C-alpha cells in the first residue's frame, strides 16, 4: 500500500525536479550558510528565476508538444525594444508601447507557428531562422530610426510598480510568474486542452486523427511562447529603464536547461508545468547560490553543466520507473 503511494508520486514528471531542487537548496544551505534561506536571499533567487520562468513554461509546453522555440532569444529583446522605442523614444503613452510589444510578439509567434505547420520543417530550424531574422530586423530598425542601439525609457510609477519594481527584495515579476504558472497548471493539467498537448507530443499524426486541431494548437503554443517572452522583455524594459538591441542567446540555453531539469522530455509527450517551475528555481538557485559560497566564481559554468547532466540522468531514471510501474498484484 505504502509502496504504491510512493510509486505513484515517483512516476510523476516533476518527481525528479523536486528532488533535485531540494538537493541543491540543501547543498547551498550547508555550503553557503543558513542565510541562503533568509527571505532576502530567497527573494534574490526567486527574482532571478521569475523572468526565466515565465518564458520557460510555454517553451516547455512546446517541447512537450514535440516542438522547440529558440526564437525567444529575439522576442524577449523585441518586447523590451519596442516598448522603449514607442514609449521612450517616440514618447507615446506607455500602454501603447506595451501593447505594441505584445502584439509584435504575437506576430512572431504566428509566423513561427505557420511556418512549422505549413512547411513541416523542424521547429528548431524555423525558429533559428526567425531568431536571426527578427533580431536583425530589430537592430536594423533601431539604428535606422534612432541612430543608437540603446534606448532609455521612463515608465509612470503605477506601471512600474505593476510590472517592474521590487517589494521587500522580491521583484513583482515573481507574482506574475506564480500567477502565470497557476494559469498554465490549470490549462495543462486540469482543463481538457492540456491532454491535447501531450497527445501531440506523443504522436502528432494519431493526435490529428483523434480529432485534435493540431495545427491550431501548435500555432497557439508558438504565440504563447513569443508573447510570454515579449512580456518579460517589456517588464524588464520598465524595470531597468534602458534597453539594448542585442538578442539574448543565453536565454535560449537557460530556458532549455530549466525545462529539461524540470523533467520535460526533449522528444515530447512527457513533462509538467510544476516540474518546469521547479526546474527554473533549481537553475536560479544554482546560479545565485554560487555567490553565497566561497567557490571561485570562474567555475560557475562548470557547476551548471554538471547540474544539467545530473538532472537529466535522474529524470531519465524516473521516467523509466514511471513506464514500467504498475500496482503490484496479490502474488509475488
Amino acid at each position, binding site marked *: 500500500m505504502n509502496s504504491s503511494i510512493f510509486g505513484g508520486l515517483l512516476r510523476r514528471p516533476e518527481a525528479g525536479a523536486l528532488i533535485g531542487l531540494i538537493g541543491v537548496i540543501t547543498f547551498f544551505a550547508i555550503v553557503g550558510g543558513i542565510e541562503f534561506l533568509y527571505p532576502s536571499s530567497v527573494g534574490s533567487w526567486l527574482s532571478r528565476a521569475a523572468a526565466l520562468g515565465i518564458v520557460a513554461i510555454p517553451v516547455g509546453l512546446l517541447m512537450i508538444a514535440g516542438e522547440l522555440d529558440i526564437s525567444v532569444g529575439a522576442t524577449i529583446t523585441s518586447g523590451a525594444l519596442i516598448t522603449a522605442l514607442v514609449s521612450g523614444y517616440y514618447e507615446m503613452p506607455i500602454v501603447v508601447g506595451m501593447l505594441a510589444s505584445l502584439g509584435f510578439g504575437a506576430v512572431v509567434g504566428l509566423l513561427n507557428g505557420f511556418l512549422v505547420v505549413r512547411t513541416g520543417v523542424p521547429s528548431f530550424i524555423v525558429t533559428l531562422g526567425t531568431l536571426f531574422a527578427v533580431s536583425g530586423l530589430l537592430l536594423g530598425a533601431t539604428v535606422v530610426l534612432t541612430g543608437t542601439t540603446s534606448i532609455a525609457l521612463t515608465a509612470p510609477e503605477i506601471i512600474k510598480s505593476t510590472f517592474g519594481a521590487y517589494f521587500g527584495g522580491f521583484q513583482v515579476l515573481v507574482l506574475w510568474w506564480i500567477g502565470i504558472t497557476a494559469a498554465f497548471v490549470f490549462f495543462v493539467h486540469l482543463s481538457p486542452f492540456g491532454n*491535447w498537448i501531450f497527445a501531440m507530443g506523443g504522436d502528432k499524426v*494519431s493526435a490529428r*486523427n*483523434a*480529432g*485534435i486541431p493540431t495545427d491550431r494548437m501548435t500555432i497557439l503554443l508558438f504565440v504563447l511562447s513569443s508573447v510570454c517572452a515579449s512580456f518579460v522583455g517589456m517588464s524588464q524594459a520598465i524595470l531597468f529603464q534602458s534597453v539594448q538591441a542585442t538578442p539574448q542567446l543565453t536565454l535560449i540555453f537557460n530556458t532549455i536547461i530549466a525545462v529539461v531539469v524540470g523533467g520535460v522530455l526533449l522528444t515530447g*509527450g512527457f513533462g509538467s508545468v510544476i516540474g518546469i517551475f521547479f526546474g527554473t528555481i533549481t537553475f536560479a538557485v544554482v546560479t545565485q547560490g554560487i555567490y553565497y559560497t566561497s567557490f571561485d566564481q570562474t567555475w560557475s559554468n562548470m557547476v551548471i553543466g554538471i547540474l544539467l547532466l545530473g538532472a537529466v540522468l535522474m529524470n531519465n531514471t524516473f521516467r523509466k520507473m514511471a513506464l*514500467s510501474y504498475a500496482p503490484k498484484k496479490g502474488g509475488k
Partner: protein
Amino acid sequence: MPTPILALRGVNKSFGPIDVLHDINLELHAGEVLCLLGDNGAGKSTVIRILSGVHKPTTGTLEMDGKPVAFASPRDASDHGIATVHQFGGTFPLMSIGRSFFVGVEPTKGWGPFKVYDRKRANEIAVKAVRDFGITRIDDGDRLVGGLSGGERQSLAIARAVHFGARVLILDEPTAALGVKQATHVLRIVNEAKRRGLAVIFITHQVMHAMAVGDHFAVLIRGAVAADFKKGEKSREEITDLMAGGASMASLEAEIASYMETHDGHPPPVAAAKT
C-alpha cells in the same frame, strides 16, 4: 432500400501527380458490415482517411443520410458520429490509459470556464471499456500506455473507437498484429456493434476474418472498385483472387494449405516452391 448512412459518390483522390483513387462509389448501411478488401497499396487506407476527415477528396462527394457533407477535419467527422481506428498508431506511449482513451473528447466536471478534466471518471470508463474487451490484466487507468503490450495497445485503440462510435465504426486492419484470442475478440465486437445498429467498415487481409463478419464486400484494385457484392454472392476462392488484386491466387494458397492434410509428418515436396 433505405438511404445509406454514409456514401462515396464518384470520389477521386490524387497526391500531387500520383492518382490514388479513381471514381469510387460505395454505400454503407446501418447494421451492416462492409469489408474493404484489396492488395497492399490498393488504396484502402486512403478511402478510410477520406471518410474520417483526414484527407479531402480531390473530386466527388461524401453523403451522410443522403445529404452531401464535407468533413473539415477528423474532429468534424467524429462529431458526425464516425469513429476510426487507423492502421498504425492511435495510442500515446507516455500518456495514461484514461487520458489516451479520451484524447480529444475529454470528460469534464465543474462549471463555466473552470471545467476540469475528470480523471476519475475517465479512468473508470477507459478501464471498463478495455476489460469488457477481455483484457482483464488492466485495472489501473493511471498506468502509462507505453507499458502495455502491442496487442493490448491495439485493443485499447479499438475499445476507444467502439466507445465513441456513435453511428459508424471504421477499423483499418485491426487484427493484423493481434493474436488469435484478441483477433477473435475484435470479430466479436464487430458483430456486437452491428447488432447495436452501427455501420462498420472493416479492412483485413485475412479472408477468414472478412467472411466471418462481412455482409457486403468491396474490393479495390489499383484505386478502383473492382467488385462490390453481398455476402454469399461469391465463393471464398473468388474473394481471395480479388483480394490478391485479381491474380489467381486462391488455388495456390489452397495448394500450400493442403500440405498439412496430404503430407502429415513428412516434409512437403519441393514442387510447391516452383512458380
